[in-house]
């Protein structure tokens, strides 16, 4: 069968989500942000909530998320996305409000905001991108950086006596009464991306049912600052990140 006979509109099985805009993403080649954006877009499209969703973009590489998802957005000061999401959800309780934050934003400068928003049980969705490094500013050590990991500010590897231990913020969040769904996923292959999509969908559904805060961590790569190719970065993540940050649901009620 000729390729031209296959490539017809009626045979299309997968394409770009209509919620994604046509802008070319500014992310580095192979960056996991693009994959997670796409999964969020697909969930919003499947649930038919494009005009009812408000995203809160953080400070970090994904500050420009509002250029790529065709929904309403707000942009928060560094780390303050959960505080802004709290206000947005309380003022517009019929909307779906989610924050999209990296590990520098959520686990470092925004620790107070995320802990208290989750403890209050705000009916928001938190998408937490954990790549164990500060991506936008040039690869400095983040709270989530693994022991021994080389970054711009730990050139000989992270040392526990000097830099402290990596922060498992998702495990901390799971302890809080206000959260209803806490999970850790990844997007390095098709199977894991589909699981992450299911988790994001569940989080949005929880938000509609006013069950509390849903927290979805996605373990991601930052191949530019890890100084690896995109495919090797995925392998490095599987070998080094997953033993310390095991995947799976931590809380589901």
């Amino acid at each position, binding site marked *: 069968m000729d390729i031209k006979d296959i490539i017809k509109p009626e045979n299309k099985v997968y394409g770009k989500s209509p919620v994604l805009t046509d802008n070319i993403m500014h992310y580095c080649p192979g960056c996991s942000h693009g994959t997670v954006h796409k999964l969020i877009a697909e969930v919003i499209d499947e649930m038919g909530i494009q005009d009812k969703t408000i995203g809160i973009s953080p400070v970090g590489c994904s500050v420009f998320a509002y250029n790529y998802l065709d929904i309403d957005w707000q942009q928060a000061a560094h780390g303050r996305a959960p505080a802004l999401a709290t206000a947005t959800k309380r003022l517009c309780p019929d909307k779906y409000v989610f924050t999209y934050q990296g590990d520098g934003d959520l686990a470092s400068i925004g620790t107070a905001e995320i802990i208290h928003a989750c403890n209050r049980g705000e009916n928001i969705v938190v998408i937490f991108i954990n790549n164990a490094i500060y991506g936008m500013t040039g690869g400095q050590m983040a709270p989530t950086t693994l022991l021994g990991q080389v970054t711009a500010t730990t050139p000989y590897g992270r040392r526990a006596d000097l830099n402290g231990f990596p922060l498992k913020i998702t495990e901390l969040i799971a302890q809080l009464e206000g959260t209803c769904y806490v999970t850790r996923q990844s997007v390095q*292959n098709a199977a894991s991306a589909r699981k992450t999509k299911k988790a994001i969908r569940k989080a949005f559904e929880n938000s509609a049912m006013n069950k509390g805060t849903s927290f979805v961590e996605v373990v991601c790569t930052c191949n530019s600052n890890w100084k690896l190719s995109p495919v090797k970065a995925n392998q490095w993540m599987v070998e080094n990140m997953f033993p310390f940050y095991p995947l799976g649901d931590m809380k589901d009620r």
Partner: protein
Amino acid sequence: MALKGAIVVDTEKCKGCGICESNCPTKTIGISTEVNGKGYPFAYMANPDACTGCTNCATVCPDSVITVYRVKI
């Protein structure tokens, strides 16, 4: 019944990261030696006969540049 697939890559938006290539179970996808307007190599069907239209490549593509078509024959 066999499944036959094909992909279309938006070559101007593709950044040639190779994640689709590493996720392709049938080794259909290759990365070109040519480059697009931005200077990136791009994904293409190096072995079009092998494609089953499984959508794995498009699911993991960070830039959402792959469209997948599939027919049953």
